[in-house]
């Protein structure tokens, strides 16, 4: 039993759940190691790796030089030699120096070696806004990764998924970009980890009959709040948490959309060329005859992420979601 599992119900933060997942994975498999900037002595700037250096030693919880390309590039070599590196890139926008390694090597190694060199690397990236961060600390960069074949892209929205999905990511023999919604780090719940389920399944977080909200990561709590608020307007909204952008769970998503005939995709990242466009297209292709209205998107504006004092105007909130729901052609 990990520390994360032993705590009483409702008192575990997502940060602790993630920490527990790392600890349990390291205890179970000596090949798992954690590496990144400030992950050792400090325990990470968000304390996700707290205590790991003390328990497993500096070699298995490695404070690296400040160089993201070096971090991910050396993780590739480690994985080639049989280790399972879990890389922390400190913030969304500071992952960009590692982009070359990610796109040109991490994503492609299995394919170009015809399966001889799989890379079981987990790349943890705190992402998204809503924490009052200054420039370069609030990006939602999931579309870049989701657009890259060869990478799994996973994002937890609940404390339990913080544990379960991270365990699954580390267990995966493919590289996983594991996007941690910063503003949910301190959200609390109880963690009851079962056996590690493979990644790739969406989950219906709330049943509903009027319309279906499709979302993930930091936008899940906003959608659940919107669904509560929608009751006053007479709408009974279903909410689907995608959990994994790649692989994409068409089955669960389409079943949830067919059940209501109306759908709104919600995410914090900019809309143009975003993940929402992919989701809307897939739903349109598969559920056209079940739809009573076009699939709508509620996303961040197509602008660089705003400074903290203006970010509330950018982030999709309850009102913007309800406005979109109102436009789902109810008059028909």
């Amino acid at each position: 039993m990990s520390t994360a599992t032993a705590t009483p119900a409702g008192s575990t933060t997502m940060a602790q759940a993630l920490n527990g997942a790392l600890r349990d994975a390291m205890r179970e498999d000596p090949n798992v190691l954690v590496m990144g900037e400030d992950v050792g002595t400090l325990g990470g700037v968000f304390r996700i790796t707290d205590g790991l250096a003390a328990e497993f030693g500096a070699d298995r919880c490695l404070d690296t030089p400040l160089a993201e390309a070096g971090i991910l590039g050396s993780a590739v070599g480690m994985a080639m030699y049989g280790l399972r590196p879990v890389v922390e890139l400190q913030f969304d926008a500071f992952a960009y120096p590692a982009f070359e390694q990610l796109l040109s090597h991490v994503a492609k190694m299995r394919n170009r070696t015809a399966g001889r060199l799989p890379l079981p690397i987990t790349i943890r990236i705190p992402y998204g806004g809503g924490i009052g961060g200054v420039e370069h600390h609030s990006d939602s960069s999931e579309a870049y990764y989701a657009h890259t074949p060869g990478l799994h892209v996973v994002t937890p929205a609940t404390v339990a998924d913080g544990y379960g999905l991270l365990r699954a990511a580390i267990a995966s023999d493919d590289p996983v970009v594991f996007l941690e919604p910063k503003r949910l780090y301190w959200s609390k719940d109880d963690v009851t980890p079962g056996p590690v389920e493979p990644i790739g399944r969406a989950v219906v977080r709330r049943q509903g009959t009027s319309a279906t909200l499709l979302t993930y990561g930091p936008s899940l709590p906003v959608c659940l709040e919107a669904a509560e608020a929608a009751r006053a307007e007479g709408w009974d909204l279903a909410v689907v948490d995608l959990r994994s952008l790649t692989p994409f769970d068409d089955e669960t998503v389409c079943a949830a959309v067919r059940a209501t005939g109306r759908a709104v995709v919600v995410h914090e990242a900019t809309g143009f060329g975003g993940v929402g466009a992919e989701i809307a297209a897939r739903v349109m292709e598969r559920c056209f005859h079940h739809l009573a209205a076009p699939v709508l998107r509620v996303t961040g504006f197509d602008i660089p992420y705003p400074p903290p004092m203006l970010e509330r105007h950018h982030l999709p909130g309850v009102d913007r979601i309800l406005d979109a729901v109102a436009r789902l052609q109810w008059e028909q």
Partner: protein
Amino acid sequence: MTLLDQPAGPSASVWPPDAHGPRRDPAPLLPDPEPFRLLGTPAADKLDPELLLDLYRRLVVGRRYNQQATTLTKQGRLAVYPASTGQEACQVAAAAVLREDDWLFPSYRDTLAVVARGVRPVEALTLLRGNAHHGWDPKAHRTAPLSTPLATQAPHAVGLAHAARLRGDDVVALTTVGDGGTSEGDFHEALNFAGVLNAPVVFLVQNNGYAISVPLSKQSAAPTLAHKAVGYGISGRLVDGNDAAAVYTVLAEAVEHARSGRGPVLVEAVTYRLEAHTNADDATRYRTPDEVEAWQERDPLAVLERHLRAHDLIDDAGVAAAAEAAEELAAEMRAEFHAEPELDPMSLFTHVYAEPTPQLREQAALLAAELAAEADAR
């Protein structure tokens, strides 16, 4: 004996062939192993007292600036503040050695250098206040925006310096990088470009011993960070970053070296950040109070004040006068920051492109309608 141990044979002189040149003697590029110092050495007696007093006044202002910004952060007036307390000698010297038409390319911790360049604190701190991404007019002040992604501004400094050369201007660019930032690829690419282009750039590495929690010992195995210059054919210089006179002298020489076409220079200033990484950091997790205390002894402000007093270059009245000038800046900061900044949500859509796209116009209209509805509801 392995291959590597074998003494160079006669073939060594003809290999590699000339076409693979240039081959340069690294000796003139190598930094001295000991950081250059002036205060407390006999050479200090020959220093111009006016220069020392000027540096002292700048340091007093710099320290007060750091204190005031820290207080404002505690009061919630800044979103975050990475203090340069303990590094003021590097900050003020970096600005003092530049001409008005030279350019500064600061890193995220260097707002004091920006203020020392003549930018008002309220503009220097805009990013950290959180009302906009950036405050001052970069062209008017020849000061690039603060660069948060570490070392990414270093190639910009090289490019600007090279462009000035192409235009026939004797302009120099100075960029600041931390010890951690020297590990980034962009830093090395910038050094290499500067060497190849012989660009008039000065790289100031403020080695404060830590990158957040990571000590230099885990950051680099180089003999000194100044040695990193040599592999790129650039001169490396090592200086005591808490000796304001030494930092000023070495940086002034480096700027002159670059300006006169003799090539770029990398200066490593050995210093220490006396505060935590930012207000959000807990430094007790990675360093001891003893270590911090030891560095308090070498506080650049205290070091210079001791020197000035020992040489009868300043008295209590002089110290009080310097403090008074610093108080003026602090008062200005309080007045500026205790007022609420003007916020215009519609500004989110301006300056994304020269002309907004049709999509941005649509989105701006949506936000405008929301704001109107919000105002009506109030």
